């Protein structure tokens, strides 16, 4: 049996663990750049706030109802997600991390026990250990586990845990679920299916596989078979080494000066190298790109990129920054309002496995410098030590306010990853 465990309103829930005073207050979390609402508490949803509503449109509602607003705090969410996963590992054989707030669990080591009870205990332990509320669906296939999970979420009398112990129990629920609720069935296929008289998930499960394959594709056919209780595929357990890694952001304010662009790209280069080192990886090809906003159609449009490569894979911030800056200089064209830039690292391999070049000896000093930088930044906060190119000096010699940095006016502290930002308790 598989369980699908997903966290309720994950980003909001993370924020509420450490800021309990707004547990019953409508809360939203904003996307990168504080653009729009990407997470809503139930109270916020009840006020009519929809996924993707832009912040500026929500201002009157926010002021009138005292809605709590938070910027996207990825570090916090990633750290909490990891904790939830650790608790789930105690209750399952294999675990597939499907997304930051969802996981599939293989419950075969626990088949002898009462699976609903198992699900309830798991939910209670996640709640106690991490403060994050979750819903659990248990069934013979992943698609059915998703359906069970939806059912559990919509029916509080299940305790937010529901198990299809056999296909009959699954069918009873599938008859009550619309076809577009099924995992893997998007609005386009749902419309096609409904045109063919297939309205419920149960109807879909009864569809002949040949028809399913013709109407949708092999993925749709797999969904139909899974709804019937036939497993197509198992847990995806390999954390694949990324083939490429991108670090980019949309700018808070458009960039028009080369110096600003250099500072931004240097910062992204540093971040990309941080990530490579953190995962024990190196890369041999880097591409810098920059573009104007495609939404501002009245402004001149430009999208450009330039790459550079190294003979031996590297994660050395200084080297990559130097290459990135050269790329910016070669790419730069004035007269545009750039809305976004970034760096992509490719040709990624494990640092231990890289082949030393014939003409490039290993550079232990660089490794030591990177290690020292990482240690200081980990202890005192990101960017405590950084490459000078990643900052901006004005002509007078002072530091310019970095206008291109992402807007995050409502950022909560890094409660779990920064010693100077711990939750406070009044003693």
């Amino acid at each position, binding site marked *: 049996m598989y369980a699908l465990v997903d966290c309720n309103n994950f980003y909001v829930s993370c924020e509420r663990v450490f800021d309990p005073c707004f*547990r019953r207050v409508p809360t939203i979390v904003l996307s990168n750049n504080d653009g729009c609402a990407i997470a809503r508490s139930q109270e916020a949803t009840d006020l009519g706030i929809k996924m993707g509503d832009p912040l500026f449109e929500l201002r009157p509602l926010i002021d009138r109802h005292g809605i709590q607003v938070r910027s996207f705090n990825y570090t916090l969410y990633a750290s909490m997600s990891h904790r939830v996963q*650790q608790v789930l590992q105690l209750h399952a054989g294999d675990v597939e991390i499907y997304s930051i707030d969802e996981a599939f669990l293989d419950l075969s080591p626990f088949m002898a026990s009462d699976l609903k009870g198992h699900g309830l205990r798991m939910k209670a332990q996640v709640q106690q*250990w*991490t403060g994050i509320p979750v819903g659990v669906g248990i069934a013979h296939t992943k698609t059915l586990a998703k359906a069970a999970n939806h059912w559990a979420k919509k029916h509080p009398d299940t305790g937010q845990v529901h198990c299809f112990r056999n296909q009959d129990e699954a069918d009873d629920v599938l008859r009550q679920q619309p076809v577009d609720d099924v995992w893997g069935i998007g609005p386009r296929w749902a419309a096609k299916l409904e045109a063919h008289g297939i309205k419920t998930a149960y109807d879909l499960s009864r569809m002949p596989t040949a028809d399913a394959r013709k109407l949708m594709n092999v993925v749709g056919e797999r969904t139909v078979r899974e709804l019937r209780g036939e497993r197509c595929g198992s847990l995806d357990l390999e954390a694949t080494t990324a083939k490429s890694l991108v670090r980019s952001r949309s700018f808070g304010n458009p960039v028009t000066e080369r110096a600003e662009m250099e500072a931004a790209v240097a910062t992204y280069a540093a971040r990309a190298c941080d990530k490579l080192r953190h995962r024990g990886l190196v890369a041999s090809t880097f591409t810098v790109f920059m573009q104007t906003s495609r939404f501002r159609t009245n402004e001149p449009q430009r999208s450009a990129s330039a790459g550079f490569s190294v003979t031996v894979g590297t994660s050395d911030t200084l080297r990559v920054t130097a290459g990135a800056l050269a790329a910016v200089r070669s790419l730069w064209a004035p007269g545009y309002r750039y809305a976004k830039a970034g760096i992509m690292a490719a040709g990624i391999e494990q640092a231990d496995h890289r082949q030393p070049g014939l003409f490039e000896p290993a550079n232990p000093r660089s490794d030591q410098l990177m290690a020292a930088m990482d240690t200081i930044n980990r202890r005192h906060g990101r960017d405590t030590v950084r490459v000078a190119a990643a900052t901006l000096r004005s002509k007078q010699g002072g530091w310019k306010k970095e206008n291109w940095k992402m807007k995050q006016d409502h950022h909560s502290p890094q409660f*779990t990853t920064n*010693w100077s930002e711990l*939750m406070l*308790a*009044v*003693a």
Partner: protein
Amino acid sequence: MAPLTFQHIYILGPAGRSTKPPLHHPLFACAVAAGFPTPADDYVEQELDLDLREHLIHHPAATFYVRAQGDSMRGVGIFSGDRLVVDRALTAADGSVIIAVLDGQVVCKTLRLRTGGQPALEAANPTYRPIVIEEGQDFEVWGVVTAVVHTLT
């Protein structure tokens, strides 16, 4: 040949799940006569990892660090600014030092559970009076404080 002496080395086991390197303190069991391997070498195979986290953290997924602010818990050795190790996996009992949420505020107090009476939060400082938790009041145990990190420098 000098007699071999042995020290008992207790291998505490691997450090908790973490990407940070453990603190290493290699230990040698005894003087080694040159060129002659000793049975004691088997005990020196692993470096002894003295990692404070292993001593302090028993449920990594449920353990958080919280900073104390205020004087009311000096009696148990918690001073303002200290970092508290808080374990959410433990069940709070009478006398546990806890982090609690009371009317939306995060506090650090000693929990008092009285049979047949309302629970209360006590300070460890005679100038502070206990807070009795009323029926239906917004109260929740956030976690149990298991250790205090009080740095002297």
